[in-house]
């Protein structure tokens, strides 16, 4: 699915250059569930942004589905992203002005999908995360766990090959967190590749492989005992 070769990301300010990722090599195969762990500032988010094509590396290669995308421009990346990648965030990032249904539908609006099919798919996605009964509510009317379930529905409704989750359980209590993790596992079981950044060791255990990042470098990769 994706392969990072000698990936470097450096941030420049006027005075200092900070290296967020230093020669990272990671290979994620189709259908894997990878958790990335590490202390704050180790480069997890930078890594996820590049993998999600929200940012471009300073140097190195990024192979996605057999395509080297590290030099692609914004327009091209946006196109690959919308066809292949779904996102889940720690802070849910639902749009306050849109209802639950509309928030999920948003992910289909930028694909050429007829309204009727959109409706069916959104309903299906909402059913899948057990939030169908709340489709006409606004995000503020929901609990954190419910909001994250809507966000998951939004992430998967366009049937992406890969799901990127940035601390999806960070703002949730443990019950809701576990619930979200079970859903991610189910999605993985159905074939979706998942890359997840997390601080939570128990939640990382849901993954098939854990990558430890420290000071911008991969320090350990261990397969979870099956």
């Amino acid at each position, binding site marked *: 699915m994706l392969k990072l070769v000698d990936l470097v990301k450096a941030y420049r300010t006027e005075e200092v250059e900070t290296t967020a990722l230093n020669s990272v090599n990671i290979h994620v195969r189709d259908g894997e569930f990878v958790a990335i762990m590490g202390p704050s500032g180790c480069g997890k988010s930078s890594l996820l942004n590049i993998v999600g094509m929200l940012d471009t590396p300073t140097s190195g290669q990024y192979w996605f589905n057999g395509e080297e995308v590290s030099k692609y421009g914004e327009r091209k990346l*946006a196109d690959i992203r919308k066809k292949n990648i779904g*996102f889940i965030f720690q802070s849910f990032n639902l749009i*306050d002005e849109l209802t639950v249904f509309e928030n999920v539908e948003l992910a289909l609006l*930028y694909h050429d999908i007829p309204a009727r099919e959109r409706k069916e798919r959104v309903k299906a996605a909402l059913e899948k995360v057990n939030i169908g009964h709340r489709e006409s509510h606004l995000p503020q009317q929901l609990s954190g766990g419910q909001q994250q379930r809507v966000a998951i529905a939004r992430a998967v409704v366009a049937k992406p090959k890969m799901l990127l989750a940035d601390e999806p359980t960070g703002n949730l209590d443990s019950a809701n967190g576990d619930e979200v993790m079970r859903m991610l596992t189910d999605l993985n079981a159905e074939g979706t590749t998942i890359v997840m950044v997390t601080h939570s060791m128990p939640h990382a255990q849901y993954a098939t492989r854990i990558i430890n990042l420290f000071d911008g470098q991969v320090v350990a990769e261990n397969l979870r005992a099956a």
Partner: protein
Amino acid sequence: MLKNYLMVALRNLLKHKLYSAINVTGLAVGLATCVLILLFVRNETSYDRFFTDSDRLYQVAFKAQLPGRQVDHFAVSMLPLAAAMKEGLPEVEMAARVVQSSIVIKHAGESFSESARAVDPDFFRMFDFQFLRGDRLTALDEPNSIVLTESMARKYFKDAEALGQTLDIDGSGPAKVTGVIQDMPSNTHFDLEIIRPYAAVAQVMRPLESNWGGVCCETYVRLKPGTDGKALSDRMPAWFKTAAPTLNSPTGNVVLGEIFTPRLRNLKDIHTDPVMSSMRPATSYAEIITFAAVAALVLAIASINFMNLATARATQRAREVSVRKVVGASRSQIILQFIGESLLLTLIGLVLSIALVELALPAYSAFLDKKLTFNLFTDPLLGPALIGLALVVGVAGGAYPAFFLSSFNPARVLKGASSGVGGGSGRLRMALVVVQFAISIALMVATAVVYGQLLYAQNKNLGFEKENTLVVRGFARSADRARQETLVEALAKLDGVVAVAGSNSTPGDGSENNTNVRLPGTDPNQMLVLRQSGVDWDFVKALGLRMVAGRDFDRNRPADQLPPLADPAEAPAGGSAAPTYPGSVILNEAAVKRLGFASNEEAIGKQFEAPADDDGTNKLTIIGVVADFHFRSIHDPIPPAMFFIDRDRFSDVLVRVKPGDVQATLRDIERVWRDMFPNRPLNREFLDDRIQSQYIREAKTSQMFATFSGLAILIACLGLFGLASFTAERRTKEIGLRKVLGASVLDIVRLLVWQFSKPVLIANLIAWPVAWYFMDLWLNGFTFRIGLNPLLFVAAGGLALLIAWATVGLHAARVAQAKPVTALRYE
């Protein structure tokens, strides 16, 4: 997709009501202002286009360069010109003159003073005014015919059929109504109410009929189809030199072709080409462009509001933008979305502005004295024009925020629990506020200068007493002149009257009579042209002129008056020597300079010659000098002028009344008049009213300018208010911290107020030099102008600052008073 955009846009509008209200109000007021100005501009540039032949109808205008005088431009010409053009210029198909005449109409036992125009028979064949009754082409063929406008017909005949009725014109007998035309529309330079054939005034005009030196009528021509009017106009001066004869007078030859330079003005250009003696006041292109520029500036201010508030609020939209990007929106889609939102807002503003325009239009039309129309259904251009306007504003205002908002990096925004975008464009916002206030301050300065100049013009000492001086008009006919002396004596005896004097011209009446004089010992080929006025013994007293040298006319010295002209019948047979008439003359200071005397005193006792009305010469002795005074408004330079006692009596009588019970004196004057002229209404006006009326248009222009500037400032303040409320909201946490650390309410208010004082202060630095440059340029167009007072600029800047403080202070105080705990719990 569109539905989604629309929904998000509408929900955002509803959620942020203050923001929406400010934007929509600003846009609505801005668009309404713009539309009102553009309606004015459209009206001003649409003059005289409604005649079928407008393209080949021209008026002759002149540039006059009298020796020793500044250049004058005017729209009146000589009586023989029309016939000469028709004969000498093959391109001229028809020509018609228009002569103004004051008439008295006696109808149903009452007398009315009216202003009529006498026109050549071709007039209505050239200008296809709409005839409601009668036949346009033949209406004025009979010498005793008369054409009325609808209003005039109603005034005399109420609802009865006017056609075929007769009106009794004092002095020239009954006239038959042969046509009724529509009232003049507001977009024509013609000011016609009563139209008579030229034959009706031919008798009175006879002395000028072949005079190429006197300008007293408008001349219009219709050129043959396909004629290049511009080329013909260019040829006019050369033709005129050959057509106009040289005037031979005993005091020297006057080459008219050297003094007068004619040109042709197309009918459609007349209104935008201000010259003297127009039937209606014209508007210069500069003025029209100025108003169009104000419209553009007002719109710019409204657009800036939108830009500022939209980018300021960007943080609130950052997450939405990022999520859209993450789920696959391209940047161009986001840009389109936000420009679309801006258009939506503009359209709402447009709908409101249409309502505002409808509300303001009646008062606005009345104020401008124009019939402005604003009808979306009957005016095919209006709808598209409005939509176009909204598109321009919407895109102009929405483009920057759209680019700014779409540039968010979703990775950063979506990471944090709160939206992670700072006010990245804060500096740009402040720059835009600077622009808004620079415009506002410059407009304030401009308004103040325009008003200052107007007040100066209205109140400047014109050199004569305009208060309490009455002009009694209407002695055009010689029969009345004979009784004038009796009237003057009777009026002088009244208690409330200070002085009475007849005169052939009075300040502000627009008439002018110039003559070429000869000073012994000067080059006979040098033309010394003086303005001449035949006046009465007490002229200086009646006008309150100031003698600066010599003495006033003296009744007890009969030699001051020119002796009566020799009767041609009594002239010595074969008299070869033309007669010479001695008399006294008073000069103004400009004439003293023109004649080359070293001082006013030196001029006293000197003699010069001026042509008499026969072939003789007046030999005039200078007995006194009066201080210069203005004959028209202060906009016109003061010509060199001379005054002598006229042997032929006068057209007007000046009556200076005592201040106090002016009404009683007016009643007395009325009584004296009625005893002498029982069948004629008293035609009188106060000089100050007449002078004031010359400034009506300028006063209106100033008021319009002030109003639109005020609206511009209002819109700018709306924006500032919105920005301040946004900033206050955003800085709640910072302010809470400052208070925890010991800042007082005053400290906080000062902090916030200062933040918004800076752009206003910087705006001054931009506005002052720009306003100074343009207003100095504008003032240079006046002969007598005010200086530019730096205090005025400081005051405008200070006022802008005060307005900004008042706008921001409210927010600052509220935020500063909030308990720090609430503020800190904010996020």
